[in-house]
């Protein structure tokens, strides 16, 4: 019987055949935490009286949510993590190193890996053909100690890609459209597996955006095959040797197949306070926006800044709309400086944050005021997400965000191009 991508990867990493519905014990190739989930992981590891890490060179601590720290409590959490890294000899990406999922993509995950992180957007690495999933602090503490975890092999939903994006439409619009169609629990406990004859029309950056938001439909993992585009990406990161081709069997069994024609998608926006509460950008024309935030693990890559800079070049943000940009990694920032995107964004009136999660989760660096609305390229718009339960968060692509920053209200980017 043919296997889905999820079944193939988990069969290799566990004893015996892994079929949808089975519970398996899987080896874990890469395990990580970030600075708001890591301290509890460290405490659970210590409470378990574990003395050493199963794979120190594949255990990673990231400092990205509070980067740099806005208060003494989080600074003390950082101290705890630094001490743990020192004592255990694991990898550490300290403040300023970028968003964990971007670093995992650039430097750490590879096709066929099982990746477990204490952050729900660990699913991002599914774009590389890695079975990557988020778990809590206790689960990851046990992975740190034992190098393995239990997993229920998920049923898979196939997303069959056809067609080509129209102008000013991109991966974010696709994934918002998909989540709007199947709902915020439309893929709970399942794998979303992307394929189809036009998969090559999705760049690696597109794939990271899409895999990143698989969890917003409840999915355990959002998987892409490892193909030529994956190979080119890994080569560009200086990791050509990490490539291996990976695809589902032709006779794999899917719970269902959803066809998506890229050419039929329009710029989409998720409205407060649920990610599946979507509308077309043009239907929200006139919605005033006090802040635009471009960045995060969803849309903080060079390609995203290129899109934003392309729209904002020679223009200014609306005087009543703050524009905040957070590159996802130092590599992204350096490249964006080299090709002039940062200059363009600054000239348009943007604030450039250090590489990290920035304003996404309401810790600092762009907390909203009562009654204010933000159009963000992040992945979540739950009530209170950006630090204020009295504020409103809309989600969109970088193109829609940039166009809206100029207009001061939600705007279909097609109108300004």
């Amino acid at each position: 019987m043919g296997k889905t991508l999820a079944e193939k990867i988990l069969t290799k990493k566990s004893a015996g055949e892994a079929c949808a519905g089975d519970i398996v014990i899987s080896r874990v190739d890469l395990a990580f935490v970030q600075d708001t989930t890591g301290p509890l992981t460290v405490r659970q590891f210590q409470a378990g009286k574990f003395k050493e890490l199963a794979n120190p060179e594949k255990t990673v601590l990231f400092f990205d949510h509070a980067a740099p720290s806005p208060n003494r409590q989080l600074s003390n959490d950082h101290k705890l993590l630094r001490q743990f890294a020192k004592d255990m000899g694991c990898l550490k990406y300290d403040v300023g190193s970028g968003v964990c999922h971007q670093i995992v993509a650039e430097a750490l995950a590879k096709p066929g890996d099982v990746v477990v992180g204490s952050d729900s957007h660990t699913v991002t690495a599914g774009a590389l053909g890695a079975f990557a999933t988020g778990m809590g602090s206790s689960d990851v503490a046990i992975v740190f100690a034992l190098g393995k975890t239990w997993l229920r092999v998920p049923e898979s939903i196939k997303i069959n890609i056809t067609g080509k994006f129209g102008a000013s439409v991109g991966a974010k619009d696709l994934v918002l459209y998909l989540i709007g169609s199947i709902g915020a629990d439309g893929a709970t406990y399942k794998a979303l597996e992307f394929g189809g004859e036009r998969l090559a029309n999705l760049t690696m950056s597109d794939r990271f955006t899409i895999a990143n938001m698989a969890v917003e439909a409840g999915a355990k993992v959002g998987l892409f095959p490892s193909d030529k585009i994956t190979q080119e990406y890994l080569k560009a990161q200086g990791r050509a040797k990490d490539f291996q081709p990976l695809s589902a069997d032709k006779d794999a069994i899917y719970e269902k197949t959803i066809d998506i024609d890229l050419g039929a998608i329009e710029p989409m926006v998720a409205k407060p306070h649920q990610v599946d509460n979507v509308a077309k950008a043009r239907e929200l024309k006139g919605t005033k926006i006090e802040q635009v935030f471009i960045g995060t693990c969803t849309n903080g890559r060079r390609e995203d800044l290129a899109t934003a800079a392309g729209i904002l070049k020679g223009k200014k943000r609306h005087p009543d709309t703050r524009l905040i940009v957070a590159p996802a990694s130092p590599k992204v920032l350096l490249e964006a400086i080299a090709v002039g995107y940062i200059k363009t964004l600054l000239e348009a009136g943007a604030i450039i944050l250090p590489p990290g999660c920035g304003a996404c989760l309401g810790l600092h660096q762009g907390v909203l005021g009562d009654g204010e609305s933000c159009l963000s390229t992040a992945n979540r718009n739950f009530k209170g997400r950006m630090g204020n339960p009295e504020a409103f968060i809309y989600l969109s692509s970088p193109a829609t965000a940039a166009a809206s920053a100029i207009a001061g209200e939600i705007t279909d980017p097609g109108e300004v191009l």
Partner: protein
Amino acid sequence: MLKGKAFKFGDGISTDHITPGRLAHLRSNLPELAKHVLEDADPTFASRVKKGDFVAAGGNFGLGSSREHAPLVIKMAGVSAILAKSVARIFFRNAINLGLPVLICDTDGINDGDTLEVDLGKGTVKDITTGRQLTFGKLPEVMLKILGEGGLLPYIQKYGDFKL
């Protein structure tokens, strides 16, 4: 047998409703964090909930972040079990890992303030206030074992490894 009062919540209660990012600085001060449990869904919950009470939620409870602090502060508040029509994947696993039962059942007939009696062994919820009886689905074996040991850490300490 668990007995307590039901606190009713709607659909789509996220981890941001339970323990928002703006309180991330309190995650190493759990008693303080617990004072804000479910604050953005019901600001009065933390002051009203008593030991043994239940959260009775709608669909997709606990969606969003992997933060284990969400089920942790619900447990610290005294909640003895979460009843929900459905629950998000990571939250589900986190709750069981902390020894907090999550019972999937049709919560529509439960009203805020109803007194409930839960029999974990039999898989039944009795609404003493309305007289209705509900059943909930059985957990997968591995989760039952982890829950039976009081959570993932005690389970691993006892067995030294995962035992399927």
